[in-house]
C-alpha cells in the first residue's frame, strides 16, 4: 500500500477542465489492472484522490481527470516529466468476460465515459465474441464531450455510437436530449443483453428504468458508483454504501445489488 512513483509522460486536454494523463512507472514494472478499476492518485502535497483508469491494458497507465478541487487541480497542473504517486489498482471491475456472447449496451454520462473506456477497448479487442454493442453517451454540451476521436473510430470498429447533449446551438448536428431517451432506440436485443453504466446517479436511475422497458433486467445491469473513497482498501469506511464499501466491493456493482440502498435517501 506504499504509493509507487510514476512519471507523467504525456498530457492531453480533453475539455476546459478535464485532462488525460499518461504515466509510466519509475520502477519499470507495469501496473496490471482490469477495466473499471481505479487508483489513488496524487500530486505531492495535495492528498490522494480515487481516479478510474481510462486506458487500455497495453501502454502507459492512463487516467482522465476533471479538475474540481485542490488535489485534482494539482494533478491536472502537472507537467510532462513531473512525478505523481499511484496506489492500486483497487476495486471490482466491469464484468467484461461475463457479457461475452451477449449484446452489450454501454451508457455513459459526462466524465463517466472515462471509467468505461477500458471496457470498450476490451470489447473491441475481442469484438467477435460479443453481439451487437451500443454506446450511448451524453454530455452537458458539445464542448464537454470526451474522446471525440475515439467515438468516431469506435463507430468504424462495429460499435453503434449515439451521442447526445443537454443543450447546444444550431451548429451541433447531433442529438439534443437526455441519455435515457437514446435507450429506446438502441439496436440491442433486450432479453440477452447486458448493460454497463457510469455517470451521474440520477442519469443512471432513469437509464435503468428505460432499460427495463427494453427488457434488460437489473440483474444484467452493472453500474460504477462514486462515494468518498479515501483509503482504497476497505479500512477507513468513508465510502460505505449500505453494507458495502465502494472501494472494496465496488465501484462496479450489479444494479440489483444496489437498488435497495439507492432507495434510502442520503445513504
Amino acid at each position, binding site marked *: 500500500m506504499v504509493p509507487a512513483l510514476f512519471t507523467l509522460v504525456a498530457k492531453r486536454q480533453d475539455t476546459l477542465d478535464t485532462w488525460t494523463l499518461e504515466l509510466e512507472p519509475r520502477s519499470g514494472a507495469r501496473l496490471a489492472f482490469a477495466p473499471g478499476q481505479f487508483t489513488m492518485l496524487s500530486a505531492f502535497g495535495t492528498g490522494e*484522490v*480515487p*481516479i*478510474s483508469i*481510462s486506458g487500455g491494458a497495453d501502454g502507459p497507465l492512463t487516467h*482522465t*481527470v*476533471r479538475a*474540481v478541487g485542490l488535489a*485534482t487541480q494539482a494533478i491536472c497542473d502537472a507537467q510532462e516529466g513531473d512525478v505523481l504517486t499511484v496506489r492500486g489498482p483497487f476495486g471490482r471491475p466491469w464484468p467484461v468476460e461475463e457479457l461475452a456472447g451477449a449484446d452489450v449496451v454501454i451508457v455513459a*454520462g*459526462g*466524465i*463517466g465515459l*472515462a*471509467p468505461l473506456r477500458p471496457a470498450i477497448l476490451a470489447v473491441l479487442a475481442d469484438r467477435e465474441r460479443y453481439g451487437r454493442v451500443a454506446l450511448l453517451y*451524453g*454530455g*452537458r454540451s458539445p464542448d*464537454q464531450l470526451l474522446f471525440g476521436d475515439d467515438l468516431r473510430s469506435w463507430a468504424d470498429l462495429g460499435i453503434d455510437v449515439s451521442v447526445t447533449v*443537454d*443543450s*447546444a*446551438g*444550431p451548429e*451541433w*448536428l*447531433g*442529438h*439534443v*436530449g*437526455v441519455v*435515457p*431517451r437514446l435507450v429506446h*432506440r438502441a439496436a440491442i436485443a433486450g432479453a440477452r443483453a447486458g448493460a454497463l453504466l457510469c*455517470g*451521474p446517479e*440520477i*442519469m443512471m436511475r*432513469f437509464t435503468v428504468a428505460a432499460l427495463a422497458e427494453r427488457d434488460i433486467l437489473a440483474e444484467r445491469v452493472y453500474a460504477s458508483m*462514486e462515494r468518498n473513497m479515501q483509503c482504497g482498501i476497505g479500512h477507513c469506511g468513508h465510502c460505505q454504501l449500505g453494507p458495502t464499501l465502494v472501494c472494496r466491493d465496488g465501484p462496479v456493482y450489479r444494479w440489483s445489488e444496489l437498488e435497495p440502498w439507492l432507495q434510502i435517501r442520503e445513504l
Partner: protein
Amino acid sequence: MRQLEELVAESPTFAALAPAHLTTIVGCAVNQHAAAGEMLFREGTPADRFFLIREGRIALEIDAPGRGPLTIETLQAGDVVGWSWLFEPYRWHLDGRAVSSTGLVAFDGACLRAKCEADHELGYALMQRFAECLIERLEATQLQLTDVYGHPRVA
C-alpha cells in the same frame, strides 16, 4: 394513401391505433419534405399541423436574444413533433428546424380536431397518445433541468 397509412401504422405512437381510426387520421395527412436547415414552424405562429418524422431529424429551438437559437431537444424518425394543434390557442411554443434532409407526414390539426369532435373514441385514443408524448418529454425536460453533469463526478 395506402402507403401513408402503413407508414403511420409503423410509428410507435400510432402502432396500436384501431384500423378505422388510423384510416381516419391518415385522411388528414400528407407527405412533406424539409431540406436541411429549413424552418418548419416558428414560436407564436399558428400551430395548424403536427408531424410524424419518417426520416431525418428535427430540432426544437428557442430563440434567446443575444445568444441566438438554442436547441432544446432533437426528434428523429418515428417521433411525433407538436401538440400545440390540440390545445388552444393553437400556436407553436418553440421553433422547429430540420437538422438534415427530413421526410415527414404532416397532419392537418383543424381537420383532426373536427374528426375528434365527431368521434370521441378517436379523440380519446389520440389524447392518450399525445399525453404519453407529453409525459415523456416532460420527464426528459425535468432530467435536463437537474443539470446532472454540472456536479462533477470523480473519474
